């Protein structure tokens, strides 16, 4: 009997744990058209010089690292429109924190799917670092609870 129950659970009870990620991608220039001056010893010196050269004009004020995620369980795999609605909720959270809307275009959005038989609670975090040294981590679970428009299980 247990074997039958296990099999039924395996077929019908499987749920999907979705993690929707958004993170900024660091893309250095592929080909340098200038010579790096001699005597540079630290990364900070290089970054300052790099900025003065104006190579990163479009990305001057963006953080070195920015990532945001929402993790929730659903009965079925997310459809494209459901995924897009989660992404827009996450993007809105970034805009609410006064980051430029250009950042959203520079970000990479991804979906990670795991399978489970027990639902995992909703969770979400936003992590920002401007220098790579100090990281600000903010729990956005309550925000997600208010704005997520999809059916999730907890």
């Amino acid at each position, binding site marked *: 009997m247990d074997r039958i129950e296990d099999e039924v659970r395996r077929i019908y009870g499987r749920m999907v744990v979705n993690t929707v*990620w958004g993170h900024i991608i660091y893309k250095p220039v592929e080909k340098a058209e200038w010579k790096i001056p001699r005597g540079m010893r630290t990364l900070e010196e290089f970054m300052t010089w790099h900025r003065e050269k104006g190579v990163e004009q479009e990305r001057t004020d963006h953080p070195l690292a920015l990532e945001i995620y929402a993790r929730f369980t659903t009965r079925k795999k997310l459809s494209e429109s459901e995924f*897009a609605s989660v*992404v827009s909720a996450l993007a809105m959270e970034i805009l609410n924190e006064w980051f430029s809307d250009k950042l959203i275009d520079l970000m990479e*959005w*991804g*979906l*990670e799917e795991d399978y489970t038989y027990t639902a995992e609670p909703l969770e979400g975090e936003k*992590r920002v*670092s401007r220098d790579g040294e100090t*990281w600000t981590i903010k729990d956005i679970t309550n925000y997600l609870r208010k704005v997520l428009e999809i059916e999730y299980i907890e």
Partner: protein
Amino acid sequence: MNISNRQILKLDIDSKEIDIIRFYIVSRLLRMNIYSIIKKKTKHGYHLTLEVSSPYINDDRDVVLVQCLLGSDYKRELFNFLRVKHNCRRWNVLFTKKYRMKNGRLVLVSKEVSSEGKFYKKTVGCLI
């Protein structure tokens, strides 16, 4: 050292060929038992998810190091290392689907495709 402690390793291999010798050497020297392997094909190579146990893999930093040793993309492991170092809750990320924004629309850049278990047979074969 806890030998029975199972860990999940997620590897992003950006090459069409998987370096079996590398897998053999690392798993042999770290006394690694591999319980399961899931291999998914991607645009540039493979995504591998391994369930392993080893007396040398005890915490998240060890997982990052071993993923790097097994040939996972170095940039991914660098970011994983920073996440672990700053005590982030979720850190081992392997996307099933990847999108970029283009003119305000999400465009699918790449996605995982399931593939047959040839690699599993080869690897497990060489470990036995």
